[in-house]
């Protein structure tokens, strides 16, 4: 396996007590302290530390830098980057200008970062997912077909936001999600007679448990619930009670009708997988903070059955009171799946 490479270059000044004492670079293995060896100006670049690296205690600098020493070639498998001559860190420069009571060789050298072929990922403390997608929903009861005709599935828009946190070093991530989904089927007439159509909008709140089995592959299970707003079809698609023709050839009284609105809850359980761009493919070798991928899931959603009732949308003044039917109960529970793209910030 080729581990991702993280590299941070810092200008450091070391003071060696005996002349000719080997530098850490000469030892062949250089480790860099995670402690603030960097100056304030370098603080924006966070060092990436190997888990087994040992921190080096800071060395007191008591002489100004007089010599710039190029670090020797690194041992095989080790990359040593020389310090650029004259490079100074404001902080260290000030320190080096102070007099030293010990006559030691003063060196200004570049601190090197050794990047191992071991994985040096950026620590993930949280992850924020922004997803957008689409998919279908297939109720298992045929009563649902009244809204879609031959199609028991309807298209949908799916937008969600999730925040998850790692559970130790287990590779598990647990988090919560908030989503918005819209289902809208094609225009369909019940028995060719009545244009029944609902637009469903739902807001979901849920929890997700995922496990990063690979860099770029994360299966998960998801439980969610929330309200579903069942709203009748667009106004221009509702039917009219009467399409009769009066003596003058015009339309007689018209009573526009629609399906009664409903607001109901739902509970959904899904299992899916997130496939995203492995972090080591991205430019930042120590682990990108941003990645993207696709999210595919399938599951079952339970919804309470409800009565589908026809109502007058705009009662016509003076019209004879008209009763409208209840089509019966719709069982809208069924299989759901979705696929989409997501952007992850971590």
């Amino acid at each position: 396996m080729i581990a991702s490479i993280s590299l941070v270059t810092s200008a450091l000044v070391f003071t060696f007590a005996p002349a000719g004492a080997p530098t850490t670079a000469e030892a062949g293995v250089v480790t860099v302290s995670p402690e603030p060896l960097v100056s304030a100006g370098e603080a924006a670049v966070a060092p990436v530390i190997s888990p087994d690296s040992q921190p080096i205690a800071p060395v007191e600098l008591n002489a100004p830098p007089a010599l710039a020493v190029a670090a020797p070639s690194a041992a095989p498998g080790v990359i040593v980057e020389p310090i650029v001559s004259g490079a100074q860190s404001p902080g260290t420069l000030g320190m080096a200008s102070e007099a030293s009571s010990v006559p030691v060789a003063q060196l200004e050298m570049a601190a090197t970062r050794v990047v191992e072929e071991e994985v040096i990922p950026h620590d993930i403390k949280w992850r924020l997912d922004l997803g957008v997608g689409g998919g279908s929903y297939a109720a298992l009861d045929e009563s649902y077909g009244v809204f879609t005709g031959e199609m028991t599935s309807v298209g949908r828009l799916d937008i969600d936001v999730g925040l998850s946190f790692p559970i130790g070093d287990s590779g598990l991530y647990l988090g919560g999600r908030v989503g918005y989904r819209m289902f809208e089927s094609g225009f369909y007439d019940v028995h060719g007679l009545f244009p029944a159509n609902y637009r469903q909008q739902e807001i979901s709140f849920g929890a997700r448990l995922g496990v990063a089995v690979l860099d770029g592959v994360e299966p998960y299970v998801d439980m969610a619930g929330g309200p579903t707003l069942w709203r009748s079809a667009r106004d221009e698609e509702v039917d009219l009670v009467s399409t009769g023709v009066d003596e003058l050839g015009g339309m007689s009284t018209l009573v526009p009708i629609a399906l009664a609105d409903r607001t109901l809850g739902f509970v959904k359980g899904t299992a899916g997988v997130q496939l995203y761009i492995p972090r080591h493919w991205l430019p930042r070798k120590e682990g990108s903070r941003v990645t993207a991928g696709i999210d595919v899931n399938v599951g079952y959603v339970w919804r309470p059955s409800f009565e589908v009732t026809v109502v007058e949308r705009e009662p016509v003044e003076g019209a004879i009171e008209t009763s409208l039917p209840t089509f019966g109960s719709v069982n809208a529970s069924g299989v759901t799946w979705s696929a989409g793209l997501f952007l992850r910030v971590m």
Partner: protein
Amino acid sequence: MNYRKFGTRSWRLAVSIFVGGALSGCVGDSGYHDESLNIVGPVATDRSLVFNDKTHDEILVAKPIAGTLEVTRIKIGNESDEVSWMQPTVDRDGVLLMNIATDAKQENVVEQLIRVDSNTLVQTSYDVGAPFNAIKLSKDGRYGVLYFGEGLPSQPLQNVNQAAIVNFVDDSVHLITVDGFGGSVRDVVFPEGGMGMDVAGVSRDIAVFVAVGEVVIVDLADPEVNDTQVGFRFDTSASFLPSHVLARPSDDLIEVPALFFVSSSDADVTMLSLVEKLNGSDDGERFTVQPGLLPVGLGTTDIEVYRGNDVPYLLSIRGYGVLFTNITTQGSFFVDFGAPLETSYLRASESNGAPSTELVAWDYAGSSLHTLKLRNIESALGRTPQSINISSRIGDLTVLDDDRVLVASYENQFEFYIIDFERDFFAPLTWGVPFDLKSATVMNNQLLVGVPGHDRLGSIDLDTFDPTEIELDSPFESMHVLSATGRLVALHEGSSYGYLTDVDARDLSRDGASSHWGFFLGGDLDRNEEEN
């Protein structure tokens, strides 16, 4: 933690899953809600409208109750059979359904006549053995005779003279083949007075099967014994087809009951006296006929029988008057009406405070309606018909009750008339829509009218002749009076989803009306797959 590389192969697999999943969302099971509804009817009972839902093998009973509509569905048969026709019972307290196989491949279907009570919705089934396409009901509602009427046969191999006699009192069924002389049954007639006719001391319920050139007389009370053996070819013309059949029960004047037949193709009225059949070949009681001819001349268009003072008369409507023939002696006299006559009926009336009978006669497209009092009539002397002139010519005429008739104008379809003989009152009425006599009904001394294709219902008080009208929200295609509940129901045009308006027949007003839309679709989602 360490990660493993996500290789090219894995990516291909992931893309395949994604594409497959996306495509799976584009297919689904076919829903049954895209099937077109095939609902025919309605037939009106005394309290509901009954529709035949062929899509679901059901009948749909829509019952208006206090501004609501109670809809009940009743399963009839299954996919192998279908309701081929419906008809209300005589007093409209139920509906009769003929359930037959959907096609010749359905060999296990037993053809049934099903009676559904309008109130309790209880079904009573009668196995009738053949897919009959016609039924005639006796006026008292006791019998129904199923037969094959004219038209295309309902199955390739068919006994056209097969019939089923259903007794709705004891729920028995008798299957017979009309044993005639080769003709095909055209009609079944229950002659007025033919029920319970005393023939040689035995009560018989007489029905007449009419065919071209022959009739067959059947005792419905015992068709297996007194069945089609009494067929009789009585006419010299092979094309004889009775246009009117009358029964004259026995009385003190003539002990032998008789049936009278008249045909426009013959000059005589044929009288068949029903007598006991002697020397029968079996033990069953039988009857036979003794034919006779009453010479009434050509052009008789209608006949009546009337019991005068010790004289049994046959009244023949023909030409410009009525020929009175003594059935016993065949002596006759003619009363000249001075105007052409075609049709007649007898109404009960009073003459000088005593019960009497009055003949009402008219001619289609004529300008007068004529009446003649029959009490104590013995000759034409002193008998002058009364005439009621119609400002427009007479079109269709409907007898509303003993005293009143409704006459549509022959010339002006916006005019109609109500004539009250008892009060000698004539009420011309006009309406803003073309009047259709078929959609007029009398209920509780009210004449209810409505013309299909329009959106107005009318009511006329038959005492005051005060009209009331209501305009509905939409044109209707049929109007129905539900006598048991006093409702007037208009089924609107284009109501393939079910759309009707229910009005209080005793008080036509929009305030008391209620419309019901979409009742064909009620509960549609509660059906499971097996029910569709």
